[in-house]
């Protein structure tokens, strides 16, 4: 068997007799051994398995979600009645800033990426995510960034200038101490983690799909994550740059945002919102993919209009980059420019509308079954469409100039974020919980969970539209009784109690089901996509054999004796690399073994990030440790791998 420099080997297509049970058992044992997850204390830090990292990511994001929820509860207590003294302004400002920051940076984006980390390799039919060590590194960087800002909060040094930290308020002159530095550096932590995962997703989706999964057979959830990954790649550099400028202004005296020395306060807003608007689509587009997966499964029909759905995902991704100035309508920019941004902000509803209409069409022609995941999808439709419509009104400059920075906007973005992203996410967790844990969540508790959250959500946030009309601005730690805002605020706080109950109910259901839920089996829902083809939870190698995909709906189009790939080595971590368009096999590739080095590198990186908040010396001091950990990470195995790589150097004349 020769493996050439790319041209000589080609896959062989032939039909062989069915392998016997003994051979299958041997294969299973060997794959388990090859792909084993390292055990023990040190092993926990060295894991590069995408399912393990995905579970950790999801669990960690949920802890941050609960923290964000507690912060919201504190806000609602303070605002329940006028002139309240529960939280003074300094504490309140830290609380609302942390609520937004934790929710947006430590929960919303990471949890969506986490779902992708877990599901995408399974859905495309491969054994692990691309660049698994980078995946591990990314998780720890995210974790340490989150820990940093929570610790900052516990020592009364939480950021307090809002989750988008406008300058000059967050600059060196108006925020003393390190609060804004922790915030800006949190951006760096979370963006590094997110960018790493985004690159992995692109590489996995483009190059590691199972044979037969051509572009037009990619599941809609995978498409949504691919679009999201591209958005992350193009959007995040702006905020990395912007937050770096802020850190430099604060630490070493640069003048990017100092109008007195040629800098510009609006520069921050442009840089932040160029990222910030795509950011909300980064959160929302994965949810669109989740909804498609759930609707297909719970109507037992393919989603109506696959091509239109894919195109609208892509269109949303593109158009989302052209809207950012709608956050800046009140800043006095020229009118003509603003009109363009109004039009763009309206037009983006069209692809979202396509999605909604196609789902309704799917429900129309399918056989809907209202299990809990589907209930959350219905809730999503009811809530998100309202949020989308309030967004359309916000696109109008004159109207926005009245409701901008009021509770109307708070209502809008909670409708689209909670309704448009969290409801699908909860539904998705109910949906994929059996796959991840092997057990079903309680359906009875699920229905109760849905109603608590749905009613709680609307009671909390609908009144805020009205509060906005009545002139209540955002980010106020209290308000006078004469304004008449008290009753609706009290109603909102009452709704928040229900929301908390709903959150607690979800955690209770999850924990109880994890321990004692009904055993799920491989495919409890009769699902459409490939993850349902393997056990629940999937074995550490995902699939015994890499499948060959026979249609757009991997499970529903599968023949009785499903065709599979053979010839991948099972004695090393070999995966199949296929081509971008048609997923034809191109070459086999040995993924790296688990390693402690990505974790060690994340420690050094985090120390560097935190250190540079306090001194520029952090940079020179970190260079050597960073280099050492990176060398440890990338240095190839000491003994040539006789199994995967060629052991010898080839002579020059062996041309391909």
């Amino acid at each position, binding site marked *: 068997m020769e493996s050439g420099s790319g041209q*000589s080997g080609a896959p062989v297509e032939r039909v062989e007799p069915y392998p016997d049970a003994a051979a299958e058992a041997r294969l299973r044992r060997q794959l388990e051994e090859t792909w084993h997850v390292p055990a023990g204390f040190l092993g926990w830090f060295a894991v590069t398995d995408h399912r393990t990292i995905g579970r950790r990511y999801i669990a960690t994001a949920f802890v941050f979600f609960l923290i964000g929820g507690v912060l919201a509860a504190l806000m609602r207590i303070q605002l329940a009645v006028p002139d309240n003294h529960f939280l003074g302004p300094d504490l309140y400002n830290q609380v609302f800033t942390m609520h937004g920051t934790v929710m947006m940076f430590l929960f919303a984006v990471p949890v969506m990426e986490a779902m992708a980390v877990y599901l995408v390799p399974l859905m495309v039919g491969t054994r692990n995510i691309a660049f698994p060590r980078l995946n591990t590194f990314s998780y720890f960087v995210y974790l340490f960034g989150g820990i940093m800002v929570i610790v900052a909060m516990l020592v009364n040094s939480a950021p307090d200038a809002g989750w988008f930290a406008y300058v000059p308020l967050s600059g060196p002159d108006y925020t003393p101490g390190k609060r804004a530095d922790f915030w800006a550096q949190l951006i760096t932590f979370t963006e590094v983690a997110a960018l790493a995962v985004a690159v992995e997703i692109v590489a996995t989706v483009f190059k590691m799909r199972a044979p037969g999964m051509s572009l037009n057979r990619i599941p809609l959830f995978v498409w949504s994550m691919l679009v999201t990954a591209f958005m992350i790649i193009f959007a995040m550099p702006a905020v990395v740059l912007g937050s770096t400028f802020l850190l430099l202004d604060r630490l070493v005296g640069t003048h990017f945002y100092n109008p007195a020395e*040629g800098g510009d306060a609006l520069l921050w807003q442009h840089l932040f919102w160029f990222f910030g608007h795509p950011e909300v689509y980064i959160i929302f587009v994965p949810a669109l993919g989740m909804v498609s997966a759930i609707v297909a499964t719970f109507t037992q029909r393919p989603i109506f209009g696959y091509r239109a759905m894919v195109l609208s995902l892509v269109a949303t991704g593109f158009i989302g980059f052209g809207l950012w100035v709608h956050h800046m309508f009140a800043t006095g920019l020229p009118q003509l420019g603003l009109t363009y941004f109004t039009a763009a902000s309206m037009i983006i509803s069209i692809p979202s509308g396509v999605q909604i209409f196609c789902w309704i069409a799917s429900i129309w022609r399918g056989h809907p079954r209202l299990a809990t995941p589907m209930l959350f999808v219905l809730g999503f439709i009811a809530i998100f469409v309202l949020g989308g419509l309030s967004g359309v009104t916000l696109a109008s400059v004159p109207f926005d100039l009245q409701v901008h920075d009021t509770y109307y906007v708070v209502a809008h973005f909670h409708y689209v974020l909670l309704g448009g992203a969290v409801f699908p996410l909860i539904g998705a967790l109910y949906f994929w919980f059996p796959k991840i844990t092997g057990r079903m969540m309680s359906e009875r508790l699920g229905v109760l969970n849905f109603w608590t959250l749905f009613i709680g959500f609307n009671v909390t946030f609908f009144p805020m539209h009205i509060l906005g009309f009545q002139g209540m601005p955002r980010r106020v730690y209290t308000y006078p009784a004469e304004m008449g805002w008290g009753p609706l605020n009290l109603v909102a706080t009452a709704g928040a109690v229900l929301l908390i109950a709903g959150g607690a109910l979800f955690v209770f259901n999850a924990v109880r089901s994890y321990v004692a839920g009904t055993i799920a089996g491989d495919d409890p829902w009769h699902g459409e996509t490939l993850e349902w083809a393997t056990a629940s939870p999937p074995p550490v190698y995902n699939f015994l054999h890499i499948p060959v995909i026979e249609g757009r709906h991997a499970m529903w189009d599968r023949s009785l004796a499903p065709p599979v790939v053979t010839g991948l080595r099972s004695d090393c971590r070999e995966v199949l690399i296929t081509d971008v368009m048609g997923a034809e096999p191109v070459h086999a590739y040995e993924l790296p073994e688990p390693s402690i080095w990505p974790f060690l590198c994340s420690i050094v990186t985090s120390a560097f990030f935190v250190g540079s908040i306090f001194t520029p010396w952090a940079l020179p001091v970190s260079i050597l440790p960073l280099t050492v950990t990176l060398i440890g990470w990338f240095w190839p195995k000491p003994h040539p791998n006789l199994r995967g790589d060629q052991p010898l150097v080839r002579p020059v004349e062996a041309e391909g």
Partner: protein
Amino acid sequence: MSSRPVIDVSPLPKFAFGHKGLIWWGTTGFMVIEGSMFVMALIVYFYLRLKVDQWPPSLPNPDIGFATANLLLILASCLPNAFAKKAAERFDLGKVRLWLVVLSLIGVVALVLRAFEYTQLNCRWDDNAYGSIVWLLLSLHTVHVATDVVDGAVLTALMFIGPVTDRRFVDVSENSLYWYFIVAWWIPIYLTIYFAPRWL
């Protein structure tokens, strides 16, 4: 249900150069990310330029001596870079070692020249917004050069120390790709820092 093997991938190679392989996608992904940052930084430069009448504001233009020498050096480095890439794709270890050493030396010289460039900028990062963005643009690029020089040095060492396998040659090819990226971005950054104040 039992499965039915229909494709045997064992004859396939274990690696591939360029976009057929997996690593290229990682490298390209990071090039797009860094490239987006460079684009943004350049846009910021011109955004700040348009806010004032005089540019640089009350400061002299940067001197172009060392910068131009550096530009010519790293443009010239494209040649050994191309040789390294081609040698890697031919699995010619001897040539790969040679050109990697040459590139490492060039990289070190480029960094030294870059250090002198800083002294010729005729501004400090904390003078005003102009000084800030000029230092930032230069430093953004310098970080990339430095990282790639260290990276390249480690790779060079690896090609001498071993183990050298086919996939190492793919690494050399990817490394060359990244060096092209760094060279290419120097051109607009050089023109912006050193000639925008003179031409605009």
